[in-house]
């Protein structure tokens, strides 16, 4: 599959030769199964970083349903960012209590290693209180581009595909978000300087 746990590297999606979708139902199903085989891991991790386990399982099911119905629209070579975009929309629906009424009967089961923490449980900055406080000063939009960049490992053009905006807009947004994060971090660290902390502080003097 090509991806590894934790931070996403490039995910190799099985090459799909030939016309986008054929009339052969069996071939179509097999093709879709290969696609899901490549995508479900990264999609699950995307969701578990941002919500609790049960919601992640439900939303992943919703996402796969949409992927199936829109299989003719899958952009070859950019399947994963496109799929993240769908998962993002399904997650937003779930948060608003607006999941599809014809949702699937089948339920996905997430197998966790023991003790895995999801996005629902973790503070946004993890164990780093300065980072948590700094991120809290950013807008949700800024946090979103930062997490897509850092956790999913997406390039600006890939993030653009996820968000449905231009790569240029993402580059600007990302650049500003990074800048604001640095500034906020420095401010947090200046409040409570601790020589044991490592990070991106630009050498603020301790008092």
């Amino acid at each position, binding site marked *: 599959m090509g991806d590894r746990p*934790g931070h996403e590297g490039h995910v190799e999606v099985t090459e799909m030769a030939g016309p986008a979708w054929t009339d052969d139902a069996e071939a179509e199903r097999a093709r879709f199964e290969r696609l899901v085989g490549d995508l479900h891991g990264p999609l699950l991790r995307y969701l578990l970083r941002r919500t609790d386990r049960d919601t992640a399982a439900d939303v992943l099911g919703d996402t796969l349903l949409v992927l199936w119905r829109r299989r003719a629209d899958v952009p070859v070579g950019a399947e994963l960012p496109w799929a993240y975009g769908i998962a993002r929309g399904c997650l937003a629906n779930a948060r608003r209590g607006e999941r599809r009424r014809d949702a699937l009967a089948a339920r*996905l089961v997430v197998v*966790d*290693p023991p003790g895995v*923490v999801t996005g629902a449980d973790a503070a*946004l900055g993890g164990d780093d209180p300065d980072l948590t406080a700094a991120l809290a000063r950013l807008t949700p939009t800024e946090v979103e581009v930062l997490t897509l960049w850092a956790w999913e490992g997406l390039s600006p053009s890939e993030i653009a595909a996820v968000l449905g905006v231009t790569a240029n807009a993402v580059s600007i947004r990302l650049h500003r978000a*990074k800048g604001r994060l640095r500034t906020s971090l420095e401010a947090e660290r200046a409040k409570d300087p601790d020589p044991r902390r490592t990070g991106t502080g630009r050498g603020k003097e301790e008092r």
Partner: protein
Amino acid sequence: MTTAPEDRDGDRSDDDLRALLRRADPLADRDPRLDPASLEVLMSELTDTTRPAEHDRHDVDGVGPVGRRRRRWVVPAIGAAAAAAVLAFTVPALLPAGSDDPVVSPTRPAVATGLVLTVPSTDPLTASCMALSPELLAPAQVAFDGTVASVDGTTAVLTPTRWYRGERAGAVEVTVPREVDVALVGAPRFEVGGRYLVAGGEGQVALCGATGAWSPELEAVYRAAFPG
């Protein structure tokens, strides 16, 4: 200044920032996965192009790899068959004034909205029925109590008098079952003036006793399946 910076250059000095954010990744190096069996079941459900009701789990044809199953929307029948021509539900004007269908009777009542259901063909080798129960009937998308207004060739038109579920159509057009369907899966034989209980979904009539001549027993099942 709104020139977009090259993120390539920014990346070099932002590696520290990225590393910091990665340390806060809730998943860290964990690798949660989906239970493969649950994924297979879900994939089977969503790629099944006839999109059956959730309760149709009695699939004699079901052995084999994902994708081999071909389930039908027939409640509560078991079995697979090449789908008969399925007419999707359409609203509103379903009984087309300008239709070139030679079967259409000129005496058919004009209606503002209509509904068309077909009786799915069944494979005599594999079709069989489970006993009808409210649980098996409950997933139906359409259910009503109605009277046959006309029968013309392969088409019966019913006037619903009471809706248990679904669109309130002025008339429902149902294809008349072949004799083999009547014998095998209890498809009803529609007669003009007769009163019937009809259930269906996805443009198809539910068989195996789910659709049939009105009786107190069948009505009891409908009331239990569609409360309220």
